[in-house]
């Protein structure tokens, strides 16, 4: 019986390879939808900056550059470490996978902690677009537009990251139970795609939030 040969195989698939490739394809398609999801924000950024360039850039100058940059490096590294873990499980080294997952979770938590600290700074400097606002005068409007975008964008990214952390915790638990091997580790690969995408979102948001508004 098929069930005994390959315990993870669903009955609509011919073999595990077929199923694994399908799962990976499914995750890529989901990421394509995510591209459009964040694409809407990107359009909002472009149009708002087009109408209110001076104020929008003035808003961007108020961001905390060092946190954003540190977070970029942290997240890139986390994606690298997780991919390394995937390489290890392909070489049948589940212990190394668990270690890599742990480091990834650690880096993700650092990102989140820094992000929370950054929000704290932003809020205490009255950069939330509603209510009393730090900037005054002619640039205040555009800056409020920027900060509306900022909070929605970073909030959604942090939400994606938190979901990713949850999924990583699940992967690490399964891996410790010995669920993955060189022969079967589809979830590890699929989760890796998602985690790298979260990384990509931050890579794109980083210049939009921290760099474009500066230096003018």
């Amino acid at each position, binding site marked *: 019986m098929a069930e005994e040969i390959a315990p993870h195989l669903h009955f609509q698939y011919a073999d595990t390879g077929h199923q694994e490739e399908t799962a990976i394809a499914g995750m890529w398609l989901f990421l394509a939808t995510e591209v459009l*999801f964040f694409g809407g924000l990107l359009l909002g950024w472009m149009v708002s900056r087009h109408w209110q360039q001076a104020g929008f850039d003035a808003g961007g100058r108020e961001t905390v550059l060092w946190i954003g940059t540190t977070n970029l490096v942290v997240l890139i590294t986390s994606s690298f470490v997780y991919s390394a873990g995937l390489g290890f499980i392909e070489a049948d080294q589940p212990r190394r996978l668990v270690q890599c997952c742990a480091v990834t979770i650690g880096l993700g938590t650092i990102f989140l902690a820094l992000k929370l600290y950054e929000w704290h700074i932003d809020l205490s400097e009255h950069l939330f*677009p509603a209510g009393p606002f730090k900037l005054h005068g002619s640039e205040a409007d555009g800056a409020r537009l920027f900060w*509306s975008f900022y909070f929605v964008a970073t909030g959604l990214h942090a939400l994606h990251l938190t979901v990713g952390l949850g999924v990583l915790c699940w992967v690490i638990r399964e891996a410790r139970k010995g669920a993955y091997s060189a022969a079967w580790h589809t979830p590890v690969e699929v989760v890796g795609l998602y985690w790298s995408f979260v990384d990509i979102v931050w890579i794109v948001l980083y210049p939009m939030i921290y760099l474009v508004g500066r230096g003018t």
Partner: protein
Amino acid sequence: MSQTATVNERAAPAHERPSYLFDGVTLKSWLLTTDHKRIAVLYMISITIFFFIGGSAAALIRYNLIVPEGMIPSAETYNRLFTMHGVIMVWFFLVPSIPVTIGNFVLPLMIGARDLAFPKINLLSWYLFILGGAVALYALFVGGADTGWTFYAPYSTNYAQGNVVLLVTGIFISGFSSIATGLNFIVSIHRLRAPGMTWYRMPIFLWSLYSTSVIYVLATPVLAITLLLVAFERVFHVGVFDPRIGGDPILFQHMFWFYSHPAVYIMILPGLGVVSEVIPVFARKELFGYKFIAWSSVAIAVIGFFVWGHHMFVSGQSLYASIVFSLLSYFVAVPSAIKVFNWLGTLHKGYIRFDAPMLYALGFIGLFVMGGLTGLFLAALAADVDLHDTYFVIAHFHYIMVGGMVSAYFAALHFWWPKMSGRMYPEMIARAAALLMFVGFNLTFFPQFILGYLGMPRRYHSYPPEFQVLNVLSSAGASILAAAYLMPLVYLVWSLLYGERAPANPWNAKGLEWETPSPPFTANFAITPVVTDGRYNYPKPETSEAHG
């Protein structure tokens, strides 16, 4: 068609297996099922409920418009009613309708698969739909919202009354159900086709489901982010659409219509597929121009993304943008015209029967052509300046959505009902209902074209008295239409208990789904079929005797 065993064949022969309807009879076995056929049934029950809630709102709208000052005393109530009607009909009936019910049921059968690629995600899709629907219904009934289904900023963000945030949350959640379904369909069609089932051997319905899914997957996320921005702006009274801080309210319209125009094709493409599937069966003739119909579905899905600005010719968008969008809008009409001509080509020299699915399909052609042609009016810039936001627009899209899509839904429902339920529906009553629907529909919506031309704006609770005659006509038609919609509800439920037992292939149709028993068992196929037909087609007239 020859068949051969594959690796994951299961033991029991087909005739000993219980049908999917009785493979587990507990409530739990239904609510936790991952069988695409059961999920289709769950979806069908859900969207039927939504259809009748949305329909009741429509009935109240028509009731209100019988007299110029409005039968319903309060304009606020009226605004909430048409918002309820629009939101429920668009997101909780039309967008899911054919794909999640008929599509869910027949897609794996048609490609010779045992289920969709991700059965658990399919079930999740239904739960998200139910959750989103429950949240939206709560918002609509407790507090309501008066923004219309279009949620234009800044009205929705800063001025509207009621539960806008909760309502957009419900729509947001149900959006993920659309994405899950679309993702499942696309991946299944790519990865799970039976051996020998090449793209050009696929039933034409799958081409339209595939195109629909492309829109589900790529347009819905933009709606999600748009609604999220609206909710943010409504909660904090500041945001990127807010004109008081230099935000652009027209940006909202761009983002909204980037989803909502392709969503119109979500609503009609499955219908086009159903009709392309039904006509050859009842004309006993191969589909004329299969490849053109197939690729015109893909073309509609792709070009459909380029034309959203035609909703904004009077919105204050730039003249350039309007001209470009108008031109592109005409391009998207061409594939639809191609389909209509090919259907006529299919009818030519056929052996045409008039079973209920065919009557619905023929009615569909007529109403769809009317709807499509009036779309040309609205794509023509100067004509749209006059007709935009009037009852002409209402009539136009109801011809497509209700005349087209709902007719196609009933065509599909009758066509695959024997397969889904294992019972035949009563044919004569079904034909009567189809005719009544056609008459009632035209009586309801044709007067609205004239009303629109005469200048009656949409979403008006009261109106100048000279519009009354046409409004009364329309309301009278609506009552006929309501009766026609109740008929299938009654006789289809009746047939579940008392209908004649359906044979495996009551229409003598080609297609893998007809090679399974009616109703099919859970795994669909005892052995994975191998398709060897040179072409997925219907029998030529000389070889096919009229059935039954």
